[in-house]
């Protein structure tokens, strides 16, 4: 049996943090991605510009730099806002930036840009006739989105979505740098303390591969579900 020098439970907690962080930021990034895709496809010049600016900047700057900017800068920014509120309106609040929340927000924000591109491509692949048919039935815009555009779009978006999720999962490792005790940070501490880097790092690598394999299986099942009605070929 591998000797974990008592780091086993902490490593497990770290793995849980990694998974929670991954899933929560995935949800946030999907929401942001849908909004971005809608903004980029809208007829409004301003919304289109905002969407493009967001995706361009996020995809042009390293994740780690954005994370540090939002995490270190976030606290100062919030302090400035609360100070201003205090001096202007005598409202006294103090908001402490929690590492976990900062991590979820940053990763969600970063991958929202990538998801936006994925969804935009997928929305454009939806047959226009289907949407027209929905309108002809007197469906509202929201109903058309929920019943027709979204399910049809997901079929095209799933490969990209699964790809983004794999990258997102690996990006969660970066939160260890801003001080969150995810499994990478626990493993790094354990490596330094016990001088056995291979034991801990290989375990962590194994957990990442396991999560990736499980989600690959999950995405394959989802793909099957959304492919219903499109023949057995894919």
């Amino acid at each position: 049996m591998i000797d974990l020098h008592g780091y086993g439970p902490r490593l497990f907690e770290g793995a849980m943090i990694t998974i929670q962080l991954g899933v929560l930021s995935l949800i946030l990034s999907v929401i942001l991605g849908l909004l971005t895709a809608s903004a980029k496809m809208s007829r409004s010049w301003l919304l289109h510009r905002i969407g493009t600016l967001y995706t361009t900047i996020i995809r042009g700057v390293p994740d780690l730099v954005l994370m540090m900017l939002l995490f270190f800068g976030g606290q100062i920014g919030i302090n400035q806002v609360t100070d201003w509120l205090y001096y202007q309106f005598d409202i006294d609040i103090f908001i402490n930036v929690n590492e976990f929340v900062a991590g979820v927000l940053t990763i969600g924000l970063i991958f929202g840009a990538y998801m936006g591109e994925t969804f935009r491509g997928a929305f454009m692949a939806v047959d226009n006739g289907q949407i027209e048919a929905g309108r002809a039935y007197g469906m509202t815009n929201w109903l058309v989105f929920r019943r027709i555009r979204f399910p049809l779009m997901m079929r095209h978006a799933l490969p990209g979505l699964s790809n983004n999720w794999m990258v997102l999962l690996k990006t969660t490792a970066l939160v260890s740098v801003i001080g969150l005790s995810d499994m990478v940070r626990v493993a790094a501490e354990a490596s330094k303390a016990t001088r056995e880097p291979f034991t801990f790092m290989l375990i962590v690598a194994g957990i990442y591969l396991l999560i990736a394999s499980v989600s690959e299986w999950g995405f394959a099942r989802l793909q099957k579900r959304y492919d219903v009605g499109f023949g057995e070929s894919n």
Partner: protein
Amino acid sequence: MESLTTWIEGLLADNTIFTLQTLSYYGEGLTTTVQLVFLSLIIGLVLAVPLAIGRGSKHQWIKMPIFFYCYVFRGTPLLVQLYLIYYGVVFIDGIQDTWLWVILEKPFVPALIAFTLNTAAYTTEIFRGAIKSTARGEIEAARAYGMSWWLMMRRIVLPSAFRRALPAYGNEVIFMLHASAIASVVTIMDLTGAARFVYARFYAPFDAFLFVAAIYLCLTFSILYLFRYLEKRLLAHLKPSGQ
């Protein structure tokens, strides 16, 4: 040069954070980042070509280890790989007494090894896809001409595969540039390292990180336009006719 420095000094007259001193940190950081990314990409590319050919081999004992290598390095975070190599090297018993320590003492070499292995894995997959999608007719024509396997690879398969791999490889180069920010975690003074230093020194996160983000953005766009130009030159024959 002299006039340039005075010009910059004049511009920065009222600035406490961006002085010539801190700008020189960013400058050194830029050099380190470019060195690290460039070297790992070049070595990774050299490794990836034979690996991609081997990945398509008929023999299981060649194919499987390469598949496993790619799977592991593409499936785990670069940070974990970096830690594994960085700490793994430092904690080898007695390494501090050997001549190797002179090179390995600085974190640059472990980081370079980690980045190289990582990009080689991704590049192998990119090239494998490109080699696999070679038109059958081209291979048959090469065989019909009596070309040996090696000659066919060199003259027919690889040149066209490289061209087809170009867009995906451009993405990999940008990905590598962004991934290189991780080097700052193991105390390398790359661009991000310089930004972290300036942040810690002046407690000015917006100035330090927004400036470095702008530099990365410029680098990203330069790479993007370089690859767009290359694509236009090298993939001209693949464009739909009439354009």
